[in-house]
């Protein structure tokens, strides 16, 4: 992204949009995100009617259906509070694609308004909360994978590593070809399984080659993909098993340990 985003002062309240993948597979990452925000003195509102941002239908080409579901999400944020998501991919959908999806529709203005309030969680913690964090964990070697949406669509490639640098006992190691896609791509992973497999296997190798004990990512799609492949290979004794965690869980766990 060539434009520089201006960040608002820390608000009193935010909406938290958990995303469907976190909801079903990584709820602890959602809870960690909420608790990190609360620790910053922010009241977190979790609209119970939230479901999915619509991205799966959108990227599959079913835009009528994506619009139906997205329209329901637009109604969840009536107050002018920021909307925080623990996913660069879903945040990218809502910030970058909602305006296009609703262009020329009755919801166009609302979609623009919602899009302008969207923040990815680590972006919000770093740039809006200016979060200070005390690392209470043991020394550890960590690799970070930033999703392509967070890196390229949202322009947040430096945010995750910047947060990890605040952690005194964390040594961040950099895997080869760090900016390359992990091969998830939603339905791509099952529509083109062989290409996806080649990509994720290369990614696992790059990460295990660093000797990292743990991988963190701000996106659960990538995490599910990379960790699934790592576990699969580790079960056959092919690679070292690496612990995988959403960056929110990692930050919360290590700063909240007693």
């Amino acid at each position, binding site marked *: 992204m060539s434009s520089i985003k201006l960040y608002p002062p820390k608000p009193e309240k935010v909406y938290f949009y958990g995303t469907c993948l976190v909801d079903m597979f990584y*709820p602890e990452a959602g809870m960690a995100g909420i608790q990190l925000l609360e620790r910053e003195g922010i009241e977190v509102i979790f609209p119970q009617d939230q479901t999915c941002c*619509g991205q799966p239908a959108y990227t599959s080409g*079913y835009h009528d*259906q994506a619009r139906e579901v997205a329209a329901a999400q637009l109604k969840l944020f009536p107050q002018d509070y920021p909307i925080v998501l623990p996913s660069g991919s879903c945040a990218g959908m809502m910030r970058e694609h909602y305006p296009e999806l609703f262009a020329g529709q009755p919801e166009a203005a609302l979609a623009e308004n919602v899009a302008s309030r969207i923040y990815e969680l680590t972006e919000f913690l770093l740039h809006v909360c200016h979060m200070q964090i005390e690392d209470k964990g043991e020394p550890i070697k960590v690799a970070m994978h930033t999703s392509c949406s967070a890196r390229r669509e949202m322009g947040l490639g430096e945010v995750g590593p910047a947060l990890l640098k605040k952690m005194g006992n964390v040594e961040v190691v950099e895997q080869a070809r760090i900016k390359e896609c992990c091969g998830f791509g939603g339905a791509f*992973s*099952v529509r083109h*399984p062989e*290409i996806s497999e080649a990509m994720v296997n290369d990614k696992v190798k790059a990460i295990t080659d660093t000797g990292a004990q743990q991988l963190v990512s701000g996106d659960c799609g990538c995490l*599910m993909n990379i960790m699934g492949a790592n576990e699969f290979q580790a079960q056959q004794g092919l690679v070292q098993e690496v612990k995988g965690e959403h960056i929110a869980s990692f930050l919360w766990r290590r700063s909240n340990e007693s």
Partner: protein
Amino acid sequence: MSHNPVQSFHPRVHEAIHNPQIRANFRKAMDGLMDKRLAAFPSDDDLQKMRDLAASIRLRALAKLPELLEKLEANLTAQGIQVHWAENGDQACKIILEICQRHNAKSVIKGKSMVSEEMELNHYLAEHGIDALESDLGEYIVQLADETPSHIIMPAIHKNTDQISDLMHEKTGTNKSRDVEYLTAEARQQLRERFEKADVGVSGVNFAVAETGTLCLVENEGNGRLTTTVPPVHIAVTGIEKVVENLEDVAPLLSLLTRSATGQHITTYFNMISSPRKEGELDGPDEVHLVLVDSGRSNIYQDDELLDTLRCIRCGACMNHCPVYTRIGGHAYGYTYPGPIGKILMPHMVGLEDAKDLPSASTLCGACGEVCPVRIPIPKLLVRLREESVAGDKQHDNSMVRGRGSKRNTTETLIWKGWAKMHKHGGLYRIGTGAATVFKGLMPNKIGAWTNCRTAPKLAASTLHEQVKARQLAQAKVQKEQQKSEGEA
């Protein structure tokens, strides 16, 4: 034209992905090209400004395309270059054949031209008894192997030195050697003889300048200059989108083209052709022709969004940076233009029925869009073509895209409709059959593909919705008890 690949996409991918030679050749070459490009743009700020300028030049040219094409034709004609229009590749082939036949041509020498690949010109000429020889080294190798280019600017990038040495030994009798200088010199020797006796030279065009009637040709080997100056007849062939308005538009585009493609600040040769040989001049052809090919381009032009496809200046940076292209190479795509640009261009040339697997073969990682020198929003156009494949947006029902809706099927449509119904009601979503059902419902028999190389995803014991609710209830209870004890006290 026989664009239809012999096999469908997946078997070709399977073959490529399990070929260690292909994997190694492409990985190595693409890593090198990415590094070279990066080194050619020391300042990201400057790069972004250059991209802005280049994009604006291309946008302006496309905005005035019909007018600029007329101007180009008028200026070229006034300068003695004959302009021909072809609706499709077949017509373009016929036009070129007729010119050749008029001159009793038997031997054609060719400079690099992807448009001539698009229309399979060499085969067409061969069928009519005319021998066309590729003179670009990469194209020459590909032609020797009876293959097609696997990359738009480095046609033989799928082969390493050993493979090229073996091929040249087998086909032309050179010694087997890893000495690239030796192999190049041998190829040059063979080509020189053909340049001298060629009746017609065929080349591509990188930029056609409307204002001055100038055909610009970018190349590194000098073969382009020989092709366009030695034979008595030169035929340039290109797509209608290659026109730019002014001469001053060329420099920024050229600079970005070469840096994005190979990391070169400029190529060894840059040819500007504006007329046949004039009286008193020593070099140059007696006749120059330009064949302007449509082949679906004017159709793309009708659509405000897809129009951006036509900005392309064919640098190949999108494929160099594509994680999919790097894994499968150019041939697996099955069409003239591989990689990201091929995925957004080929569906218009051959129709979505044929090219049905191309738009989905991307993770939408955005690496292509990030490096595109003219800022083509490739991921956005891929999503648009996915929508066209399944006719998934009523707003586009009148679109001009060939094969709109050809991938739509009842089962998948029903699944997405069901998905929408469930996900537009928070209540339904929460009480719904749970995450597992949703996940499996979306991808019925495909969880097998996921678990070919990964463990299955593990559903959480309770959803975030439930955990948040439970926490709120617990907090409310504590509060209530506090109030109660305060009240009692």
